[in-house]
């Protein structure tokens, strides 16, 4: 998907009360380079936000009645962002934080936060912001 498509998708589907649209956009870039059909061959991580079966189950357990996702839907970009952004809040507030409960450990979100900050201050040169994501 293009950057513009992702920005629109996130604006319309970000369910998080904690994380900005820019943060989610940068996280999606870091996880999958905006490719909604990406999967991890060694785990169940699927779709734009690379949601595992465990993450989807956690969202279903912690969300209000009527909110339910299937892991098989996670290549659907809309469902993925809705479920993934709900999971981000759970990771922050009920688990060990985004770095450890979503990412690879301490430092995982550092580049995302830098990217988010750059996007907020200069949306025109978004490419420079995306390049803040590095190993």
């Amino acid at each position, binding site marked *: 998907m293009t*950057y513009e498509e992702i920005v629109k998708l996130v604006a319309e589907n970000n369910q998080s009360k904690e994380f900005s649209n820019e943060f989610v956009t940068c996280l999606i870039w870091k996880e999958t380079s905006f490719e909604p059909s*990406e999967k*991890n061959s060694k785990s169940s991580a699927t779709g734009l936000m690379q949601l595992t079966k465990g993450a989807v189950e956690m969202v279903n357990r912690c969300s209000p009645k009527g909110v339910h996702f299937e892991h098989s839907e996670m290549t659907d970009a809309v469902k993925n962002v809705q479920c993934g952004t709900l999971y981000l809040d759970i990771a922050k507030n009920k688990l060990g934080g985004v770095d450890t409960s979503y990412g*690879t450990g301490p430092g995982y979100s550092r580049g995302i936060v830098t990217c988010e900050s750059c996007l907020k201050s200069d949306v025109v040169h978004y490419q420079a912001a995306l390049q803040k994501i590095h*190993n």
Partner: protein
Amino acid sequence: MNALRTALVAVTLCLGATVFAAEPDIDSPLLSWVGKFPSDTPIANGGTLLQQAGLRKTLKTLLPAPEAKRLGEFDTEAPVRRVDDYLVVDKCRPHACPADTATIVIDLRSDRVWAGFFTRSATGMATRWYGNRDDWNALPPAIVTDFLKRHGSIAP
């Protein structure tokens, strides 16, 4: 005179048909992976795409050991695409996709294979292309453009 004209038309049509005939369809087992993931095993007892004997051997010869090791760590993958007569395989490092990524390109009409790598760290970035017959600039421009978009060197 009419007979001669008819004969000339027939010869012209035959020659035209020869010149403009489409290339024969590609008959490669690797086409089984189009739309599937590289780690899928669509051929019974056949292994993954990168385990196919010819491709595995080519990549082993082509890639320096550190790059081969890196490729083995790229568990995040997109479905295999066909672009013209080429198969395109995109893989990247989990949780660092645009910063550590690879594209393998297989020419379905010959034994040509390319592997492109990109890494971005806090201290710099590097692009490396390996080809067994040709350099990267022999690739269709669309494939090179997609490679650049995947890591943000051109706008995604």
